[in-house]
């Protein structure tokens, strides 16, 4: 057995915080200990149940096969389809994403990411208004006022407050938490709210109205604001507006609480406008709390490859983007796709059940380290190495900062990138074969 080795400053490939101070002890080819990571990160790095072999469904049952057989079957499915969907990409490296986009171009697929059931509305909001943002270190070093709106980092991004926001100390924020005002706006008193200086409870689905009222108050037009908006008293809103205007450096972090609620992208559009306007009075930035560790990265790769960050339809031979038409959920709901590849995501669990039902009617190829409900409906299942633990690559933090994921241990599984190359080569081979036969 090999000696224990210590990997310092590894990058955690779980959530959008992409913590890069993780120490990992490896012995005998296995991770033995993980230091500095949160519960979510350690659970992932320590490892747990895996899909053991590639499988192809035969007479209703998934049967083990070779990787090449799985690649060939996957390629065949993609080639037979008129408009395949290639969905997921949030929990793998940018390198895998690049190969996936190439494959999508090759077979004329719709390429979509988990952003569409997450911060997709934020992307559309940004298309409307732009994003006044900053790197997380800027918040750590400067912010004296932080608003968490419809997000709950205490449970979704456990080290966010310590490393980057509420409790972080920096050059102009030596007192850390003590020197800051923390405000939480949510429909329920979350763990994050319990640690705030001020919790503002709003009625579900009323974010747009509350933001609009704040914009009025910030602009000095409070006379037009009614006594209560979205379950919040005008006095509380006026207080909040005054606090925001008085900030030396303010930051708004927002989550699915506003992207998933009534108004969706319009909520984000409004929040972006509020932050832009606050810059007339103080310095303010805003940032979506991205969930999966590389959901931001695949958006970046897709944007520089195709011009658009999600929901790109390559069926026409050129990129086409129209969320609501080309997003995964819409395609499935319309029955407008006849095969799907689900990679580094669990579409069957995370889509509305009525949408997921459409996946049960078409051949599905799954590429994932772990068994999940998507496996239950898949025709081809290809297990992969875990990016960031068993494979190197690039990921982008929630603030858009690119970091290099380390490989901590060896794995018998191919990386997502290698699998996609295998399928791509099989597609090209089968196409050539067919062309030769026809000739």
């Amino acid at each position: 057995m090999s000696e224990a080795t210590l990997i310092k400053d590894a990058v955690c490939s779980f959530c959008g915080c992409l913590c890069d101070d993780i120490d990992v002890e490896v012995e005998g080819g296995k991770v033995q200990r993980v230091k500095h990571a949160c519960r979510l990160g350690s659970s992932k790095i320590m490892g747990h149940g895996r899909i053991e072999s590639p499988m192809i469904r035969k007479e209703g049952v998934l049967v083990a096969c070779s990787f090449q057989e799985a690649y060939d079957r996957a390629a065949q499915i993609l080639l037979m389809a008129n408009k395949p969907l290639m969905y997921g990409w949030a929990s793998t490296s940018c390198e895998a994403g690049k190969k996936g986009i190439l494959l999508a171009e090759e077979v004329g697929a719709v390429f979509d990411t988990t952003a569409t059931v997450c911060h997709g509305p934020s992307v559309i909001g940004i298309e409307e208004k732009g994003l006044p943002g900053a790197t997380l270190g800027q918040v750590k070093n400067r912010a004296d006022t932080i608003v968490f709106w419809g997000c709950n980092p205490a449970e979704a991004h456990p080290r966010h407050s310590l490393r980057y926001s509420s409790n972080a100390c920096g050059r102009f924020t030596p007192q850390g938490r003590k020197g800051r005002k923390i405000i939480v706006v949510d429909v329920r008193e979350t763990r994050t709210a319990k640690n705030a200086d001020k919790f503002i409870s709003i009625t579900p689905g009323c974010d747009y109205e509350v933001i609009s009222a704040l914009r009025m108050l910030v602009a000095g037009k409070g006379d037009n604001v009614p006594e209560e908006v979205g379950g919040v008293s005008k006095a509380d809103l006026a207080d909040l507006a005054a606090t925001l205007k008085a900030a030396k450096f303010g930051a708004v972090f927002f989550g699915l609480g506003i992207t998933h609620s009534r108004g969706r992208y319009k909520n984000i559009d409004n929040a972006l406008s509020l932050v832009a306007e606050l810059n007339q009075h103080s310095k303010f930035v805003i940032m979506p709390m991205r969930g999966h560790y590389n959901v931001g990265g695949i958006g970046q790769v897709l944007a520089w490859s195709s011009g658009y960050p999600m929901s790109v339809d390559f069926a026409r031979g050129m990129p086409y983007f129209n969320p609501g038409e080309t997003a995964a959920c819409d395609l499935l709901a319309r029955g407008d796709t006849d095969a799907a590849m689900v990679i580094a995501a669990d579409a069957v669990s995370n889509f509305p059940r009525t949408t997921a039902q459409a996946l049960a009617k078409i051949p599905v190829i799954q590429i994932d380290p772990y068994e999940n409900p998507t496996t239950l409906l898949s025709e081809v299942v290809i297990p992969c190495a875990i990016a960031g633990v068993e494979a190197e690559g690039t990921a982008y933090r929630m603030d858009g900062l690119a970091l290099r994921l380390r490989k901590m241990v060896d794995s018998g599984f191919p990386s997502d990138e290698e699998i996609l190359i295998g399928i791509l080569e099989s597609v090209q081979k089968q196409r050539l074969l067919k062309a030769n036969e026809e000739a």
Partner: protein
Amino acid sequence: MIIKGGIVYDPANGIYGEEMDLFVDQGRMAEQAKGEEIDARGLLVMPGGVDAHSHIAGKKVNTGRIMRPDDSRQGTQSRTSVCRPSTGYTVPNCYAMGYRYARMGYTTAFEAATPILEARHTHEELAEIPIIDKGALTLFGSNWQVMECVRDKDLSKLAAYVAWGLRAARGYGVKIVNPGGGEAWGFGGNVKGINDTVPGFDVTPAEIIRGLAKANEMLHLPHSIHLHFNNLGKPGNYTTAIETLDLLRDIKPSRMRQIVHVTHMQFSAYGGTSWRDFESKAPVIADYFNNHNHATMDMGQLLFGSATTMTADAPLEYGNARLTHNKWSNHDIELEESSGVVPMTYFRKMLVNAVQWAIGLELALLVKDPWKILMTTDSPNGSPFVNYPEVITLLMSKPKRDAEMATLHEQVPKRTTLAGIERELDWTDIAIMTRAAPARILGLQDKGHLGTGADGDVTVYNLRPEEVDASQDHALVKKALANALYTIKGGVVVSKEGQILATPPGRTFWVDAAVPPADADRLMLDLEDKFAKYYSIQLSNYAVQDAYLPHAKAIRAGLPVEPLPEVA
């Protein structure tokens, strides 16, 4: 490869329109070669174009793409057996960047501004841009470590940091944008002039610029400092420009080149006290350049229509967004920089835009020595680079300029001197401004000329320079420049009559400068402290890894390196 019978413009080697055969062997210009013959008889032949300042890769460009799906929809082209799909006009996807430069006969382009912290992203995009060679300039102007070294007057530590930063970013040169302003913007402020103190750091922009210029020369870097002035884009800012240039007159260059390259000069040649009495001060700036030899510039020409402004001058972008009520992206980078992106449309009938258009042309026509001024649009700030043929034809044709002027706001002739300028540039001027000068200014020895050993980058345009009158036939010239007959990159025909035939990956240049170990050691103590206390990532994860430069070309510099021999 043999390129036969072209009318060759190779000003770096004293060749100004001579009929001759060119030879490319193993990717380089040679005395003799065999193989493929390119028939260029009577046609205009130049080295491959070199763009020394263009925003082609990295977070700002991608932010532009993400916030502008309207732009991505323009210029869409399908995938072919050779090409990936193209999208975008002002912010094209990576593939279109490479194809469009190649179609115009360009083989090299340098990304203008990359913060060290986000250099990994820049290199991810650069690696994805096909065909052209590239490099990225690294931002130092609002960097805490830089400002502290300048404040402490510790020049050798500053030089050590610049070398370390270039290595960490795999960067090519020292870019300075609105020095000190990026830090002030961290709390929503700005610096108002070169002698303003940067809040919290007890240094002035003037000190930062001088410090970095000296460090640049201590390191014998191939390129000089590359400067975006304070107060850029504001009426009356020509005085800041002159004041800043005067700061650098006494510094001795370590190589045969300028001490400072001023970028997109057009945006800093403004007179007036407000937009109301806004006017051109291009003649004053041009005079300064005509009478001094320590500075070069690029035009930053503005053209009417759609643009996407993107710069590390974040307060400027906030101003743009307030002025136009357009969407606004901002991105501050901890300890290093700030930046912004705002879409923009320039209008013929808007006086300010029309004057800006004229200023760029005045600069290029009034500066006598074409080696001092490069043709750029600060793409995509003034206009996307695909419009270079428009700029070139404006410079070559007085009738074209007059025809354009007739469509503009009537005040333009009063606010600028353009109407009275008769000069029309010739092919030698153009070959210098788009090839020879950018290569020399950047310090790229093997680019921008066709001497033996140079990169085998050659462009053949479907124009007969001995027959065509660029002044009258400007439409014909523009068409020919937009799609070269042949673009040859490293001895391979990559584009023919606008059709991409091959997509070799381009190389990425970066500068590896050596410094005395004692200075590096002193620096590391500072950096370890900064990463422990202030950065949001670990020092060990900071530098760009080799994996991100699959086709790297490192250029050595630093103290032990002998100065380069004189070029031409």
